[in-house]
């Protein structure tokens, strides 16, 4: 990896760690973020349980997590810090996560053409390895707005 690539990945990481409301709320931990894909870990949090009876984390938390991770994979694959937007997101809820167990979200972008990035990924239970969610996302690259790399200055860097 050359210096420019390292710099680029740092920009992406800053964007996802500091520029996202949900990243703070759900305590995302970016484990990996390069052109091969992205991995984000999320700890269990009873504040986001489905109901008072069902303590597993709400499916909507998983949707938000996988959208973030798919976007990160699309962005790193594009090797550009131009803004992106989700065009389509499909989420299959295979089974609810077990209460108290942390989860891992793993995504990669397998194709980019004409500024459209295609990505797929899954969420697994970190304790028992159960597959919880499968998802596919389509992203438009180079949408309106300033470049992500400007965030570092705006948000105060790493």
């Amino acid at each position, binding site marked *: 990896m050359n210096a420019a690539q390292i710099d680029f990945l740092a920009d992406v990481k800053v964007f996802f760690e*500091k*520029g*996202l*409301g*949900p990243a*703070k*709320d759900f305590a995302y931990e970016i484990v990996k973020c390069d052109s091969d894909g992205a991995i984000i870990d999320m700890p269990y949090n*009873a*504040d*986001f*349980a*489905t*109901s*008072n*009876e069902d303590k597993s*984390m*709400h*499916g*909507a*938390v998983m*949707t*938000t*997590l*996988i*959208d*973030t991770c798919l*976007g990160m994979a699309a962005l790193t694959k594009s090797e550009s810090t131009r*803004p992106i*937007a*989700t*065009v*389509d*997101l*499909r*989420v*299959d*809820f295979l089974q609810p996560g077990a209460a108290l167990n942390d989860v891992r979200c793993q995504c990669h972008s397998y194709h980019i053409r004409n500024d459209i990035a295609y990505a797929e990924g899954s969420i697994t239970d970190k304790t028992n390895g159960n597959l919880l969610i499968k998802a596919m996302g389509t992203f438009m690259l180079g*949408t*309106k*707005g*300033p470049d*992500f790399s*400007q*965030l570092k200055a*705006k*948000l105060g860097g790493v």
Partner: protein
Amino acid sequence: MFNPAYQLSAEELAGLIENSPYLRRFGYLVDMNEEQGLVAQLPFSERLIGNAIIRAIHGGVVASFLENTAWLEVSAKLGENITVRPFTTTNDYLRPTEDQDLFGHARVTKWGKRSVSVVATAWQSDPDKPVSQATCHLLISKKG
């Protein structure tokens, strides 16, 4: 098409939201009006931001909102003794979002014995300009 009346009032739906730590934490609101039926509302807060530069709401948050709007609609129509659980959702993002509240309503397109299919739409300032639309499929089963 079979189209049951709402079994739950706005107050009872507020109780349903109160019972879900996730929905409560995000401050979900519901309104029932004669014209549109159930309208769900997600009040804007900084934690919903997905892009701090253009101040758009996170795509995953919008997807979650539509999923919950569909869930609220089906729950409101089937009453408290039925468990409703989404199993597949597909979201189309139609317009950019702004740092404002999200509103949503849902329409059931198929009532099945085991599953229900729903189209949910979200908007911000203008209901005629939806920001996102989702097709959600939800499993229904008797509680207990």
